[in-house]
């Protein structure tokens, strides 16, 4: 049931994993989306109905495992069951003829033998109080493993719950040369767990000194594929004297006190200076552009609120530019061999004076007028590194000063992770034991003209008959006549 319940989460985009997909779904299906949202299909794994299913499942799990643990605990301390009267009904059964001499010793010999093989044994008297049969059982570990497995699953769930509650993760985009401080104001976005408090953040600062990317230029079929990303960072924990330098790679996060620092993305940040007609600087800095393709064609937004007339730029950056037959531009290669910046200009209210938070990567052009590029009648701007071009109207000039790279970093802390791992490994060990250790009962009983052997397995046991055969051979090396009834 949990399996079926998890399916919709892979069909519909999920807010936690793919927020843009959810937005796109709302745009594409304006009627259907709110209905789906009402039944939480965009948040399946945190939805009330999904939680209800797994909480019920785990309650029943606890309700089943605890009594079984008690039963098993009792079984562990009690002797094997009495030998049944008729052994020939068992799934594996042998009758062996033996001399009176062998008969005398066979019970003790088999008891010793079975004990050596790890069985728990009990010698049982017959009618005349002399030892008449051995009852043996092994494989208690099978049930132990099974219980460990189920208890560990409960452990995993608890660790996931508490770990998630205590966890936090914060994201920050850093351009080369910039630094950030590990506090709530230092992050671009932050997602805390339920029990998070700000004093959990260990005060440290991290600066991005340099960011390097290697793209493949050598192999024809692989041109432009990224081979390695390296973020060179300097971290300084408050209270420690010397700053530390380190390299963060995709699979190599940086361990900091109380958290880990991961590299999650990268791109270009063109450095621009915008001046008004008098030459006063109205905007200056390196702005991160979001990569739109594998060849790093990137999209950036620049907002200039402090000019006489507010305006904004929507810009495309091509690291190695090429023109398609249609006249559209594209990027051929992700490294900046022939970088070009193109811009469309919009004038009007940027919408940021109202105080409401706005996405820095998007420009709301609904109350703005396009004055360059598109259908405005004025060509869009094109700049190479070092060039300065005039903006339309009285907006001034823009200069493409240089190119930097940025890295997206993620500071994450989840104390549950280690416990989830410990419990999952325990669960794995438990399930392996419970599936592979055979549990069986074996009986050896005196018969009129020899002795009888029988075995019964609980669960799957491929070797039941072989076990009896081996046992018979050990007890009576020259057992000539074997009569098997299976």
């Amino acid at each position: 049931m949990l399996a079926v319940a998890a399916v919709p989460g892979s069909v519909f985009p999920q807010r936690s994993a793919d927020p843009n997909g959810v937005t796109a779904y709302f745009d594409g299906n304006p009627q259907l989306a709110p209905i789906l949202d009402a039944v939480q299909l965009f948040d399946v794994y945190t939805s009330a109905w999904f939680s209800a299913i797994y909480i019920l499942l785990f309650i029943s799990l606890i309700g089943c495992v605890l009594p079984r643990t008690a039963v098993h605990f009792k079984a562990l301390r009690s002797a094997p069951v009495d030998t049944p009267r008729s052994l020939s009904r068992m799934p594996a059964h042998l009758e062996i003829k033996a001399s009176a001499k062998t008969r005398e010793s066979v019970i003790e010999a088999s008891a010793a033998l079975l004990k050596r093989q790890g069985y728990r044994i009990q010698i049982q008297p017959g009618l005349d109080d002399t030892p008449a049969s051995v009852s043996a059982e092994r494989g208690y570990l099978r049930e132990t493993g099974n219980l460990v497995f189920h208890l560990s699953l409960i452990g995993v769930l608890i660790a996931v719950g508490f770990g998630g509650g205590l966890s936090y993760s914060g994201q920050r985009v850093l351009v080369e040369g910039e630094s950030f401080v590990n506090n709530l104001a230092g992050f671009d976005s932050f997602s805390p767990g339920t029990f998070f408090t700000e004093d959990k953040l260990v005060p440290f600062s991290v600066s991005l000194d340099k960011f390097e990317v290697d793209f493949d230029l050598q192999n024809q079929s692989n041109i432009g594929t990224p081979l390695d990303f390296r973020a060179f960072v300097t971290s300084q924990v408050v209270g420690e004297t010397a700053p530390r330098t380190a390299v963060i790679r995709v699979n190599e996060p940086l361990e900091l006190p109380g958290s880990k620092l991961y590299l999650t993305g990268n791109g270009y940040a063109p450095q621009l200076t915008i001046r008004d007609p008098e030459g006063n600087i109205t905007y200056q800095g390196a702005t991160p552009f979001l990569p739109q393709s594998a060849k790093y064609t990137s999209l950036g937004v620049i907002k200039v609120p402090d000019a006489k007339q507010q305006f904004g730029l929507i810009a495309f950056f091509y690291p190695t530019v090429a023109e398609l037959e249609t006249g559209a531009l594209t990027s051929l290669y992700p490294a900046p061999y022939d970088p070009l910046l193109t811009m469309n200009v919009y004038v009007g209210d940027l919408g940021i004076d109202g105080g409401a938070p706005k996405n820095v990567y998007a420009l709301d052009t609904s109350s703005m007028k396009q004055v360059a590029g598109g259908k405005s009648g004025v060509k869009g701007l094109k700049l190479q590194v070092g060039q300065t071009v005039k903006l339309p109207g009285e907006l001034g000039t823009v200069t493409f000063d240089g190119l930097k790279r940025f890295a997206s970093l993620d500071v994450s802390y989840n104390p549950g992770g280690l416990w989830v791992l410990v419990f999952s490994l325990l669960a794995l060990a438990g399930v392996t034991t419970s599936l592979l250790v055979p549990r069986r009962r074996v009986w050896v009983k005196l018969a009129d003209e020899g002795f009888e052997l029988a075995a019964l397995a609980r669960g799957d046991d491929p070797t039941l008959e072989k076990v009896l055969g081996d046992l018979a051979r050990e007890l009576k090396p020259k057992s000539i006549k074997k009569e098997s009834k299976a």
Partner: protein
Amino acid sequence: MTSIALNPELAGISRLFIQAAMLVYTAAFLSFAFHLSKLASTKKAVRSSASKLERAGIVLLAIAAVIHGAGVVLRGISASRVPWANMYEFSITGSFVVVSIFLLALAIKDIRLIATFVAGFNLLILGTADTVFWVNVKSLMPALQSYWLVIHVLVAVLATAFFNIGAALAIAYIFKTAKWVEKSKLKMVATFRRILALFPNEDKMERLSYRFNIIGFILWSFTLIAGAIWAERAWHRYWGWDTKEVWTFIIWTIYAGYLHANATRGWSGKRSAWLAIVGFVAILFNFTVVNLFFKGLHVYSGLK
């Protein structure tokens, strides 16, 4: 500066090996199929001449496996890494593991009767891989550059191979116990019934299928854990309900259900065999549809 040497010519040679292996698999498949149809014959003379065909089939299957293995190794050398980083490579490596496990198991247990299925299945997988999934050698994206690629994916391949054989036995079991097969008067079904009569009895098949599936389940659990450890390093969280993670979990619960079914009276037999088949269908779905059409982080097909 990181650089990597890829060898597309060698990858081309590897592809030739895979195609050659497909030819031999075809021959093996035909031998096994003819063998079965002969065994099902009502004439005694025809039946007694069948075992030669079977022996020829097994020899052919072994030859195909060797050529197939060479193709897999060459693919790895041409990419200078393990040959299981995209759908094409996963398919050729996975089907090689299937045939290897089958041949090894053959030495221990007599499971010759699903040889037709194994040869046919591998032919199908390689055919799909060569025509649909083929991509030239590529380097690994940085997120995949980890020793966990070796552990996580290799164990996933192994688990899939065990589930595959388990499912094959479950399918045979379903046919064998099906009422319509037993009662139908159609001539074709009657022939089919005689083929099924050659298979081991129902209990034996059920137990064999169960054994392959429990090993698959243990390996699958390990895949899940190893994947979470890797995700914690590469994607900064151990579990994020990524589509592939979701489906891996779904498959795990289906097989957990299968194990419970086998331990529950009244649910073993046909119902659990169906669960084993459903589980394997989910694996195929996870590998094909989820890889190609769903959005997520595990999109490594290399296809556009």
